[in-house]
């Protein structure tokens, strides 16, 4: 079911909202949340939602879910950015639905169900390198475009799974992927360029940053890395001010971060809107086909119990 929903959402963004199995056990104690809203008890109003702190303030976070689907959760619990805390909280029943990334191997491993996002609350999330314009020489562009051309959603899931499940090193995984895709040959395309590559604090982003870094290094660039920096709210100012030069980004979220009112949802529209929204010193290179969306997920048991298929179902009245 997970994969079907993922496939159907491929054109637009997929929002995986996971519902956990244990939520059903504890739905009785969720008295804290529900009934406070005048609209009566929707399913969502009985739920505790788990996500990173910034999900409360992001345009496509709680506000977006309310605006697009009329979904208002009973409570919000701060966990982490789609990491182990979020996954475990969902698995163990501390939250009933959570914000997890669609490429997370934990979704499959735990049988979480991604709730479809027909209204594209989460815009298309193509992996795209954001770079300081002055550092984007032709050689650097060619190298990074080569990577984007080979990156696919399935490939991305594979990369994450190698790091997250097999506990391989991100840099080793990056090197392996480059050589597998014939991108590891040494060259001089980026010779003389000095770049600082950054990453957010989740494994997939770290691997992507390592892929950029290793490929550019092989092309003669002098590379520094600052990985695991934190949330976008934390690293973006550094990118904007030039203390970071290159960052693996997700077209939709960076767009909504830059422009809270952005409405584009299809990959190409998002990409065009993103180029326009970026400050003059930054630019987005070619986007890849690989998507890693924010999703709302629930456990299988919760999905079955409440008959949840899309995020909109959460706004239905609870029995």
């Amino acid at each position: 079911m997970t994969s079907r929903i993922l496939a159907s959402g491929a054109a637009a963004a997929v929002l995986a909202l996971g519902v956990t199995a244990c939520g059903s056990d504890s739905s009785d104690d969720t008295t804290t949340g529900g009934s406070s809203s005048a609209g009566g008890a929707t399913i969502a109003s009985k739920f505790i939602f788990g996500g990173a702190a910034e999900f409360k303030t992001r345009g496509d976070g709680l506000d977006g879910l309310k605006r697009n689907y009329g979904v208002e959760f009973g409570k919000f619990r701060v966990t982490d950015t789609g990491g182990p805390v979020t996954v475990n909280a969902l698995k163990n029943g501390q939250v009933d639905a959570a914000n997890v990334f669609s490429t997370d191997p934990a979704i499959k491993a735990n049988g979480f169900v991604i709730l479809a996002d027909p209204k594209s609350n989460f815009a298309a999330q193509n992996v795209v390198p954001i770079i300081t314009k002055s550092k984007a020489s032709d050689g650097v562009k060619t190298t990074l475009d080569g990577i984007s051309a080979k990156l696919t959603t399935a490939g991305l899931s594979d990369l994450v799974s190698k790091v997250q499940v097999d506990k391989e090193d991100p840099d080793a995984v990056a090197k392996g992927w480059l050589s597998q895709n014939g991108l590891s040959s040494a060259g001089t395309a980026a010779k003389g360029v000095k770049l600082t590559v950054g990453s957010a604090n989740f494994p997939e982003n770290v691997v992507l940053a390592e892929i950029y870094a290793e490929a550019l290094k092989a092309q003669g660039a002098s590379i520094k890395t600052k990985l695991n920096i934190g949330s976008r709210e934390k690293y973006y100012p550094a990118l904007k001010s030039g203390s970071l030069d290159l960052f693996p980004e997700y077209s939709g979220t960076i767009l909504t971060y830059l422009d809270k009112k952005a409405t584009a949802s299809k990959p190409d529209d998002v990409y065009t809107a993103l180029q326009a929204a970026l400050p003059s010193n930054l630019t987005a290179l070619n986007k890849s086909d690989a998507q890693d969306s924010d999703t709302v997920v629930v456990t299988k048991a919760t999905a079955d119990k409440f008959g949840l298929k899309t995020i909109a179902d959460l706004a239905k009245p609870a029995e």
Partner: protein
Amino acid sequence: MTVLADSTSSSPLHFAQYFLDHSSEDLRLLWSHTWLSVVPVVIGLLIALPLGWTARRYRWTYPPIISITGLLYTIPSIALFVMVPPLLGLDTLDPLQVPIALTVYSVALLVRVVADGLASVPEDTVQAATALGFRPVERFFKVELPIAVPVIAAGLRVAVVSNVSIVAVAGTIGLSNLGQLFTQGFQLSTPDAYYPPIVLGIVLCVLLAVVLDLAVVGLNRLLTPWRRAVPS
């Protein structure tokens, strides 16, 4: 559900293997951790010396100096780390934020140590030195400070050892040091616990704390040769 190769075993005892597999990265983290633990204490001591001396020399300054520095010490480290960049106009990722914050703590801790250490110098010793013709500044560096060394060293031991722990806190907000081993291990602990980086981080932190502690003890012995002459 997870098939693990030998080199990636998640057993806690595999931290040594983990270290060998990632030695260059881990040594880099260890080095930056060491640097962050030591330099702020040295700078903190250099700032605390004149402050402590003032608190001792002009008694009325003791209560305000001690309570203001004590106040600084109550600010939680995580808050101080994140407050330093906006307050000083630094970049959010400026690597200086941690040493600056830790220097503040070191000063806060060491001012009282220096003042109390100087207070531990017997009054007759000071008077004897004055009678021998030592001028105040000379007397401070040649008589009072050396005698206060053991007490100051005791404070330095606390400062370096607690710095090792505080620096690791900075790892939770993405700064590069041994604390990152904890965040990495935490992140990789799904679906199952992944101990090696966490245990390795703890082992390296403890080793670092012990080595730095011994270094201060050794320095103390070196600077106070007279104490070895008299059995205590």
